């Protein structure tokens, strides 16, 4: 962490900056997977699923909505009605995100975000602290500003962020979208457009034409889309620029903004460079791993090579955003206080990795959940929760395959995935039904003496007993669960 940034950088020094930077990335990539965190050594307790939106936040949203609707400053009635409707839809959408269990408001994950948010507002008193930040259950590396004041950072993003500074920069970016009113302005622009006389005339004339209706409509839509995309792209640069200024009012750290974009840029690559060692992970003495399961030839089937055409995307490529940030940095004065700990790693990140697995299981995405928990198991070999989830997921694959519904919970291999994941998917598809059953059973059987006291594991063991592989009395396991965990989270599942 000896990279001191003193603008302006000469051409030459900028290059050293990059070289040093990439070395740092490699260093982080190499060290991160090796060490686990003491807190997660033996177990993980998944956060509760928040079924419905907290009533206080619901009423806050509604208050904000009526405020926004009252503040519409348009004269055309149709435009006003349209804006009102869009605003209502936006709030409804946020509420649905809560009600569909996507939003985590649990302080375990959000308190540090709230604190960062407060710090940012304290350092930037020109902005009213009107926003709220939450965590979003998704493995996508992303953040969102819904536009009415709700901001959410995904588990996937938080699992990738290496420093608090990076998280702070992401928050600044989303705050910038909010305070620039990007979403509000888009609503007004769209409402005006749809009520525009010329536009309406054009739509009517297409509807009346006998031929090529769809071509004409899609041309119209494309031209609209282009103008919207174009604005969207401008908005990203605008948000980055304001975010950098806000961020620099908070700290002298200069690495995080660019590093953040680099991480976003590499989001579709697997963060751990080595492929999962499936053999070590799934081999048991009672049911030896078969090497033939690992047969892997990435599908070479014809695909149109997608030209990386930046101009058609809603978001400009991170590389271009990085360049813009670098230009801007040259002109910013250096400031002195540095709030963040230089230690690149934090427990929030690890916590999010575990919670990501819990989310995937909750949304019945067992394939991805198994993959993520196998990755965790390699780093936390003594964690009961991880082994329990692996066992549960293996069983779910078996049960779904038996019912010819595997495709609902496991993706097909795709060479466009990171190789690690593509290999994992190929492996899962190589397994026959009976092999899935045996793997599922023996994974749990070989670990049961050690982890049986864990609730998740006990339930996973009950699942494994349903495969009919070993001669285990399912009923006994069920009774043991009910006795040990009379209020356990799986009690309901037994009755099904």
């Amino acid at each position, binding site marked *: 962490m000896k990279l001191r940034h003193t603008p302006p950088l000469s051409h030459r020094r900028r290059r050293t900056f990059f070289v040093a930077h990439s070395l740092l990335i490699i260093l982080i990539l190499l060290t991160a997977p090796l060490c686990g965190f003491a807190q997660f050594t033996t177990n993980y307790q998944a956060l509760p699923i928040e079924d419905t939106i907290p009533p206080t936040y619901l009423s806050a949203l509604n208050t904000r909505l009526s405020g926004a609707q009252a503040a519409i400053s348009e004269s055309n009635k149709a435009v006003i009605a349209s804006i009102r409707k869009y605003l209502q839809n936006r709030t409804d959408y946020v509420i649905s995100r809560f009600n569909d269990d996507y939003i985590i408001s649990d302080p375990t994950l959000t308190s540090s975000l709230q604190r960062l948010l407060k710090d940012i507002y304290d350092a930037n008193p020109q902005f009213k602290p009107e926003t709220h930040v939450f965590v979003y259950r998704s493995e996508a590396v992303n953040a969102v500003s819904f536009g009415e004041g709700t901001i959410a950072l995904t588990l996937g993003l938080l699992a990738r962020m290496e420093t608090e500074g990076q998280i702070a920069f992401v928050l600044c970016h989303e705050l910038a979208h909010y305070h620039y009113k990007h979403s509000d302005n888009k609503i007004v622009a769209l409402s005006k457009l749809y009520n525009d006389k010329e536009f309406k005339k054009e739509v009517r004339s297409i509807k009346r034409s006998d031929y090529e209706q*769809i071509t004409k409509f899609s041309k119209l839509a494309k031209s609209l889309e282009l103008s919207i995309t174009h604005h969207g792209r401008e908005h990203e640069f605008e948000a980055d620029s304001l975010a950098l200024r806000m961020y620099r009012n908070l700290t002298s750290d200069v690495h995080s903004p660019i590093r953040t974009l680099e991480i976003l840029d590499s989001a579709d690559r697997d963060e751990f460079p080595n492929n999962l060692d499936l053999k070590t992970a799934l081999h048991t003495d009672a049911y030896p791993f078969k090497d033939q399961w690992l047969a892997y030839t990435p*599908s070479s089937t014809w695909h149109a090579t997608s030209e990386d055409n930046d101009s058609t995307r809603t978001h400009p490529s991170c590389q271009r955003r990085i360049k813009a940030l670098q230009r801007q940095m040259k002109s910013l004065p250096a400031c002195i206080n540095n709030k963040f700990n230089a230690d690149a790693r934090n427990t929030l990140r690890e916590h999010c990795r575990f919670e990501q697995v819990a989310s995937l299981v909750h949304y019945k995405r067992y394939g991805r959940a198994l993959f993520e928990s196998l990755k965790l198991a390699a780093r936390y070999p003594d964690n009961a929760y991880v082994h329990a989830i692996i066992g549960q997921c293996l069983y779910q694959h078996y049960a779904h395959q038996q019912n010819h519904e595997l495709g609902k919970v496991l993706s097909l291999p795709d060479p466009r995935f990171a190789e690690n994941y593509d290999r994992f998917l190929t492996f899962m598809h190589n397994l026959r039904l009976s092999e899935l059953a045996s793997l599922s059973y023996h994974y749990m059987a070989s670990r049961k003496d050690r982890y049986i006291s864990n609730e998740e594991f006990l339930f996973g063991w009950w699942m494994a007993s349903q495969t009919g592989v070993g001669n285990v009395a399912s009923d006994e396991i069920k009774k043991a669960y009910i006795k040990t965990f009379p209020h356990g989270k799986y009690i309901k599942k037994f009755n099904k």
Partner: protein
Amino acid sequence: MRKIYLFMCCMMIAIQMTAQTSSTENVKTVKLRSAGSIIQNGTVKGYFNFYNVEKKDRKNNNYQLTITDENLREINSITITRPTTYLLVEGIFNGTSFGFLFFDQQKKSLELIAYDQTLKELGKVTKTLKNRQGYGTYMYMAQGNEMMTSVFIAVPNKGFLLYGIEDESKCDYEIEFYDNSMKRAWAIYGPKDEFDFENAVEGFQSDQYIGSIVMRRTALLDFNPEMDLLVVNTSDGKQLFRVPMETSKYKVALADLSFDAAKQQFTMFGEYFNKEDNSLKDPSQGFITVVLDMKGKVISEKVNSWKKEIAAKVPAKHKEAFEEKSILFHDFIRTADGDYFAIGEQYKKGGTPMTLKLNIYDMVILQFDANFAMKNVHVFTKEKSDFSIPGMAGMIGGSKMLSYFAKGYGGFDYAFSQVAADNNTFIINYVNFEREKGQKGKNQLGSIVYTPEKTFTVDKIDLVRKGSKYFVYRAKPGYVMISEYFEKEKRIDRRLEKINY
């Protein structure tokens, strides 16, 4: 490999055409054959979807052609403008390029278009079908029927074959070879002789040779045709030999042909008949392999007769059924270890003379070893189903003819076979109406799996599910494609599901 049925299909059309217009029952609304599998060497390599987007002008539509790979990932989508009367007949992939065959119902013409792997057009050619017999097959398809067998065939990496009828003939075959950019490399025709009716279908392909089966007749409704085997060079269409499909004692109905490059010989496999018998009407005597040299001369032959070798392997409890019922063979598979499998289905004529029916019974698989010794007879029981024979066809009488007719109209339960890439395992799929005791009947897809352990096992998938519309389609080996429609969300979910074994 279901070569023979194309002939039958030609004959059925002939019957319909001569019996002419009164038979309205087959004139269904012409529907667009909009979606299908892209086949390469008998294996699903992807899917195409061709649909009418909008009217371009008075005479033309804008169509969208979309292709996905075998895992349902969209590869590309293009818009093409063609007459409103266009139908997509077939989409194939030869490892290098796609070939699409279109039929214009009004102009009675074909268009062949080649695309590269990203759907960039490589070339196209239009061909007017002047011969009535020539466009008959396409009209049959345009009425909503499945084509019996492919007329448009991929030649690995080299191009495409098109089987048709020569314009200036009564009904003589035409075999054309088009390269990857749809330039015609060569064409061959049935000889000008007393056999005015000569149809050809693809029989096999090796690196160097293309084999076709030729059925020659003197008249359209000649129901005792002669079968020849025609082998030509892939490179220039030059004939290597054309010989009758027979040995000194028997006639052969070709099921499978293979070329051994090392030994420079061909091996023919199929059912055999006594010389005086009619292979389209009379029951076969059993199965035969015939080895031919490079001139088409018979070097050796070996038979397994129904009465002796095959009967000896029929499981005791099925003996009676084997004596009472006939078997129609759908497909023939040769596994990597050399074993031959003949896949058939039992049937028997039933009903009354007024309401003629073909009753369809169990699936039967005959297994021969690499030396063509009878190894095993496998029977897979399933619910009896039946196929009602429409009015006109009753005329053709014999139960064997009726079985071809039923085959042509999808009356059998057999659906398709899938052979794994390593040729060690295969799956035979059939659709059956299964009645479990005390339950309402339900449609099921039955999959007979020949496992890596060289045993058979059967997997079943319900084709009807509560609360959703549910369809099962052919997919890459080991999988079926399930499309499920969710009424509430108005969403179609298409996914591949593994067959269990």
